[in-house]
């Protein structure tokens, strides 16, 4: 990547920080994102109403459910999966009012799945604070066959749909939560640059 140059569609993630002026808070996290939730409660316990939705991590991931139960003062719900979190959002968001601030922490795939879920209720991506935790692994959208391949940690990866070898770009789709992948050896079939793990 050329120095000083960046792809504008590539999301920028930050650390979670409470919005001082919010009238209520909704924190959504999964797996490793539990640490980001513990960190934000280290800053302070805000006086406004709080809701925290936490999805257990997949088997290989660290799980913070027990610690969160001790730390989060109110409104904590531990859910079994990412899907249960998305379903719970559909239940609670219709009653929420302007002044609610949304914070999300977890893998990139989780962050953008939550973003899509809250967008339906008029909460825009720009209004949400996002912390990427655990892994830099990317979802890749194949521009040739339109399939999405998950958990890619290398600069070049095989498409799960068409088996083409794809070069992983920085161009990102917020709607799909995936980076662009395009055939790396179209001009000289079989000639591949070195495959390296750069998104561990």
């Amino acid at each position, binding site marked *: 990547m050329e120095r000083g140059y960046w792809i504008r569609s590539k999301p920028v993630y930050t650390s979670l920080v409470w*919005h001082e002026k*919010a009238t209520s808070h909704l924190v959504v996290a999964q797996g490793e994102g539990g640490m980001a939730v513990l960190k934000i409660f280290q800053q302070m316990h805000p006086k406004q109403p709080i809701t925290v939705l936490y999805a257990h991590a997949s088997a290989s991931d660290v799980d913070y459910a027990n610690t969160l139960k001790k730390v989060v003062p109110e409104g904590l719900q531990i859910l079994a999966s990412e899907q249960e979190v998305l379903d719970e959002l559909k239940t609670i968001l219709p009653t929420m009012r302007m002044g609610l601030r949304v914070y999300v922490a977890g893998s990139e795939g989780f962050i953008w799945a939550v973003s899509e879920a809250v967008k339906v*209720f008029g909460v825009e991506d720009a209004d949400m604070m996002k912390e990427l935790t655990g892994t830099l692994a990317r979802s890749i959208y194949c521009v040739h066959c339109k399939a999405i391949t998950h958990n890619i940690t290398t600069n070049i990866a095989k498409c799960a749909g068409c088996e083409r070898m794809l070069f992983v770009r920085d161009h990102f789709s917020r709607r799909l939560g995936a980076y662009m992948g395009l055939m790396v050896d179209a001009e000289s079939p079989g000639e591949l640059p070195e495959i390296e793990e750069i998104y561990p």
Partner: protein
Amino acid sequence: MSTINVKIAAIKQVTPLIKHFTFVKEDGSEFPAFSGGSHVVVSLNIGGRVHRNPYSLMGSPTDTSAYHISVRKQEQSRGGSVFMHDYVAVGMSFKITYPVNLFSLAKKGHKHILIAGGIGITPFMSQIADLKRTGADFELHYAFRSPEHGAFAAQLAKVCGDKFHCYIDSEGDRLDLQALLGNQPLGTHMYVCGPGSMVVAVLETARNLGWPESHIHSEQFLAPPIGEPFKIQLEKSKIEIQVPAEMSMLEAIEAAGVGSRFSMSRRCMWAL
């Protein structure tokens, strides 16, 4: 900048301080379509000095046969509003810019709260036409000094029905911003246009209630207040120019004839 040649087709006194002007194109053709919240800049030649005043388009964006603006007579006028009120007559010709929109509706909004103070109602007139056409959820909150200053109140009440709320200062009505902005569903966008103090109060209330910036929209196109006269010196040409209280620095430079040497672009002049 490309302009449109227009002439005044009708003038109507709407309130003691507000006049409504209808423009048609000089060549009789249709105007370009525009989006709710757009404005045009009208060039007014007042005693040899060109004023460029922005005015919101008030008609329905789908009506391209005429453009409509309303002008409030300002007590502390730089000359534009007084000229529009006292000298402009039916049949007179003007140059206006193509419509520009710096106050557009957020298309992704689920609900729209429009807050107008006095003449600040003007950009909402075209937005309401857009909101009605798309069937969007909205509320209009219109505050003004006294009954005779409520330009378009009756018309808006008819168009907006129960979405219309008006607050007449002289009758002791007050818009409770805290209550209004403190209880809106997620996905609501808020728009305010009016006098500076009102815009500031609304923005502050929304921010203190945790509204994200992307949901807060404001417009304030009242002419800047008259300042103090001062003197400038142009670095390269060493020309000294007196800037009168009611002129901008650029206007004073143009008036001094410097601009004519660099007439290609207003921005170029800063290179002097």
